[in-house]
């Protein structure tokens, strides 16, 4: 495990397309569900324990060497909204481009050949972690961090929320995020014996529904 490589991968400025996505925050702001730091924290906590957990387990599993195609199918099955599946593949493709340039590896090249239009982002994230010499917990940490920091930074832009308050939300959720990582890695370790059904399938129906509505808006700041 290289902490420095982990920081490179987890950096919000890592150029993998995330800046154009709000993690559901834009739709939640419009629906009046996020209005301030407190409601942002509730939103992020919900995301952490659903999308965050599932993404982290997928990423950890990919980092442990599970078959990417099986993981990608498992991600599909855990993402009811077509708009979110499209967004996840798009982000996966963008991450793969950045990862291949940053940590060239045969495994990443193989993934690009197998999924020319992109695999689910957490799957790519796990393989990127491998290419960077990182382990399953590192991959899971990146996934849960993104699941919270994405909506938090988007809300700064959408609501003009005080950036210190938004960052404090991420910090307050950190201990919970650590526990989610442990659960995700435990599940991922079971995949070798039990198959991808060992992965968690926590879902957030409202995120899925709002994402479908958001995809139909003609005026929006974020792609998802």
């Amino acid at each position, binding site marked *: 495990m290289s902490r420095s490589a982990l920081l490179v991968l987890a950096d919000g*400025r890592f*150029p*993998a*397309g*995330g*800046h*154009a*996505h*709000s993690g559901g925050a834009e739709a939640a702001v419009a629906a009046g569900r996020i209005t301030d730091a407190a409601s942002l924290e509730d939103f992020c906590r919900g995301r952490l324990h659903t999308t965050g957990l599932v993404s982290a387990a997928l990423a950890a599993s990919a980092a442990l060497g599970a078959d990417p195609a099986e993981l990608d199918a498992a991600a599909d099955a855990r993402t009811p909204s077509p708009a979110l599946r499209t967004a996840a593949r*798009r982000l996966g*493709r*963008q*991450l793969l*481009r*950045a990862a*291949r*340039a940053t940590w*060239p590896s*045969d495994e*990443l*090249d193989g993934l*690009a050949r197998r999924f020319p239009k992109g695999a689910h982002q957490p799957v790519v994230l796990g393989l990127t972690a491998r290419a960077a010499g990182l382990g399953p917990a590192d991959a899971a940490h990146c996934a849960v961090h993104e699941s919270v920091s994405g909506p938090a930074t*988007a809300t700064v*832009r*959408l609501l003009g929320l005080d950036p210190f308050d938004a960052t404090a939300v991420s910090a307050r959720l950190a201990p919970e995020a650590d526990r989610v990582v442990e659960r995700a890695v435990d599940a991922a370790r079971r995949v070798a014996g039990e198959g991808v059904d060992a992965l968690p399938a926590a879902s957030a129906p409202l995120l899925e529904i709002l994402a479908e509505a958001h995809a139909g808006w*003609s*005026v*929006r*700041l*974020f*792609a998802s």
Partner: protein
Amino acid sequence: MHLDHAPAHHGPAAVSADVTRPDGARRALRIGLGGPVGSGKTATVAALCRALRDEVSLAVVTNDIYTREDAEFLRREAVLPPERITAVETGACPHTAIRDDISANLEAVEDLEDGVGPLDLILVESGGDNLTATFSKGLVDAQIFVIDVAGGDDIPRKGGPGVTTADLLVVNKTDLAPYVGADLGRMAADARTQRAHLPVVFQSLRDGAGVRDVAGWVRERLTAWTA
């Protein structure tokens, strides 16, 4: 690395600025158009499409800030078949999408080459931004910065990366100069000072002045690219 890397360029293929496509063919020349909101970037893209579409195979990527209006405008004007025009969403930060994190734009460019290629030229219009927004060399091979006389005739004097370093500076809407009291002579002199030998075109899409010069500059770039 395996397969398809470009000469004088190591690392994985088709990642960003590589000059060959995965199949070994030379990719399209990419030209970026940047500049403040409303300066005439989309109108310049439309004019370029009309001037060049019978000579070369081309496509357009637009980067709108919160709508797809530029792409829709270009489709409505029928400057190109609709499948040759793609809109990228930029998440409230147009300069990020063309400079700091170019992933979505590279994807759009690749999809156009895959879908409607082979292409000779792809025009990438940035979402209107401030005077510091320039394109990454990983995304475009050359860039045009479009300002207009109504935005203030002191913009060339103020400089900034767009005005100073763009491969071509277009000062648009010269037809409006008399109405806004813009001093074109002063703008030209200031631009010369800021840009040394780099070219400047004064253009009006209303009366057609300069339109041929901008298209001519793009043709020269194309010739150099394919040489």
